[in-house]
């Protein structure tokens, strides 16, 4: 796990203890026998253990999942949507999608083509001004997408896969320096694209109506219900300020060409 942190997070500063920490977390071996016999890792959130232990070698994946859990369970000062978000020329593209749609693969691929990564999992929208707060953490890749991105983005570091997790094999793709160093730069949303990978499918971007975008965002939101009226107002403003598409594609190259075109047309 230490290796994962040192490599994948190497350009994040180590803050002094006088900086405010939002969450106190640990990933450690449990006490007792399971430290040695079929060793495990547990995620500890400020003295509490919110979920079941995993095998010891899954420690880094557990850390990433645990960090996400902390955010979507507590950070209700944001409207949080499940999805990836990247930026180019000061404009953010949101890729909201459930697991298995290929969003992380597309996210990693876009990052390798000079989009700045804000987050591959959690879109944090500020209800006051609609801007998105970056996390800059590594992209979590699952199963086939690991090899897909190794081929697609050979210059980028991807960690050795951890096998047999609850989500299959998991590896992490390191964020670009730009993504890590500019983690304080919030961005206004500009496009929302709902990605759907479909084998051998010609890449198409289909424009979506506002209502469809709204409803699809609600479906992918973590805490829309918790934000009550504020959630509705922020989401309505978001939908008003973006153009929405559905993307179906069988080739990353093709769909990225379409997306880049979109970015260039908008005067970027």
């Amino acid at each position, binding site marked *: 796990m230490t290796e994962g942190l040192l490599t994948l997070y190497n350009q994040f500063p180590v803050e002094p203890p006088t900086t*405010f920490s939002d969450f106190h977390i640990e990933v450690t071996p449990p006490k007792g026998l*399971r430290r040695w016999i079929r060793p495990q890792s547990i995620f500890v959130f*400020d003295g509490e253990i919110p979920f*079941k232990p995993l095998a010891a070698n899954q420690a880094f994946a557990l850390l990433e999942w645990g960090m996400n859990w902390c955010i979507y369970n507590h950070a*209700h000062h944001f409207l949080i949507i499940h999805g990836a978000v990247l930026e180019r020329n000061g404009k953010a593209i949101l890729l909201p999608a459930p697991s298995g749609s290929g969003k992380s693969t597309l996210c990693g691929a876009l990052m390798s083509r000079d989009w700045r990564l804000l987050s591959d999992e959690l879109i944090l929208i500020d209800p006051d001004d609609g801007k998105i707060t970056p996390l800059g953490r590594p992209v979590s890749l699952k199963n086939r997408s690991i090899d897909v991105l190794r081929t697609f983005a050979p210059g980028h570091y991807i960690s050795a896969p951890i096998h047999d997790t609850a989500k299959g094999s998991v590896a992490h793709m390191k964020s670009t320096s730009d993504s890590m160093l500019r983690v304080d730069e919030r961005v206004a949303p500009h496009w929302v694209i709902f990605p759907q990978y479909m084998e051998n499918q010609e890449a198409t971007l289909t424009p979506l109506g506002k209502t469809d975008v709204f409803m699809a965002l609600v479906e992918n939101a973590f805490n829309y219900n*918790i934000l*009550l009226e504020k959630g509705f107002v922020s989401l309505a403003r978001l939908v008003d300020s973006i153009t929405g598409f559905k993307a179906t594609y069988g080739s990353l190259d093709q769909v990225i060409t379409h997306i880049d075109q979109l970015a260039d047309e908008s005067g970027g």
Partner: protein
Amino acid sequence: MTSSCTLVEALLQPLKTTRYSIPEWELCIRQARASQLLARLATTLEDEQLSQHAPPPVQAHLLAARQHQAHLSTAIRNEVTYIETAIRAAGAQVVLLKGAAYELAGLSPSRSRIYNDIDLLVAKDKLEDIEINLMLHGWSSTSQDAYDERYYRQWMHEIPPMRHIERHSLIDVHHNLVPETSAIRVDPAKLLKETRSCPNNPEIHVLAPNDMILHSAVHLFNDGEFDHALRDLFDIRDLVRETVRSSDDWKRLITRAEELGLQRPLYYAVRYLNLVLHEEVAEHLDSLRTHAPSATKLALLDRMFIRGLQPQHATCDDFATGIARFSLYIRGHALRMPLRLLLPHLAKKSRKRLLNNLIGTRDAG
């Protein structure tokens, strides 16, 4: 002892937070979160117009906690309307207890309250009808096995918690405030006779104000679980401030405690409101003096309760916190049932837990 906990200080003397360093704020947030008092910290600072003096990351956490609280308030109100429909179908009346009661009755603890479940009080002869109707409306029992089932049905003052199959809300249906096997006996008919209907919700009932305080007290001081004890003590403080103002009010509260046989828990509530929250109620301890335990017992209980009433966070613990909390756990159980029932029950519970751990961890690994 550990009464210097940052959170307790911030809640009692919010002005002091204006001088907090970042690490002090961080500690305060952590302790508040662990004791389900983050929303209370937020409302306390808001009431004193101090929120804007907190550093921005702290403000974010406070805002998030307020948002979560607002959501839970709305959710609990919705859920209560569903429960009311089910219980009306059983020809019975909804009487809410604790958190849900504070919310629906619009009492001051509700502004800062996090809810985990909804507690109801029903007449025992209606219990079966109510349970069936709750099932018909989508709630199902959470009891794990025959032992669990028997433990609740035979000895407890509630049936096993019921969870809604779609909305996952959890309700505890009680037919008394204390277990059947408990040393203290309360006649639920006396409570049900005095219930009040809620403003804007005449169908929904809650206990009379004094009964609510007495229930909170018996629940806090006779129970073995002290994980949210500080939160519960703040709830009692709010209720007392809201409803027991004059010395006549105090007399009525004490008389009611005597009628219900809850003088001892009331004594503890007043004592620890004074000792832990520095509430100016010491004079009323005098009127309750005859209901106090012996000086020796009290000295021991002080050590246990004062520790148990600290935030449940490692930074509030001292050398004796572990043993104090464990003693409270045993004490709570001993008050629930006589030793001849308690020992086999605890043995069974720990055996079950051990087995679960062994099997459970194998599954997860």
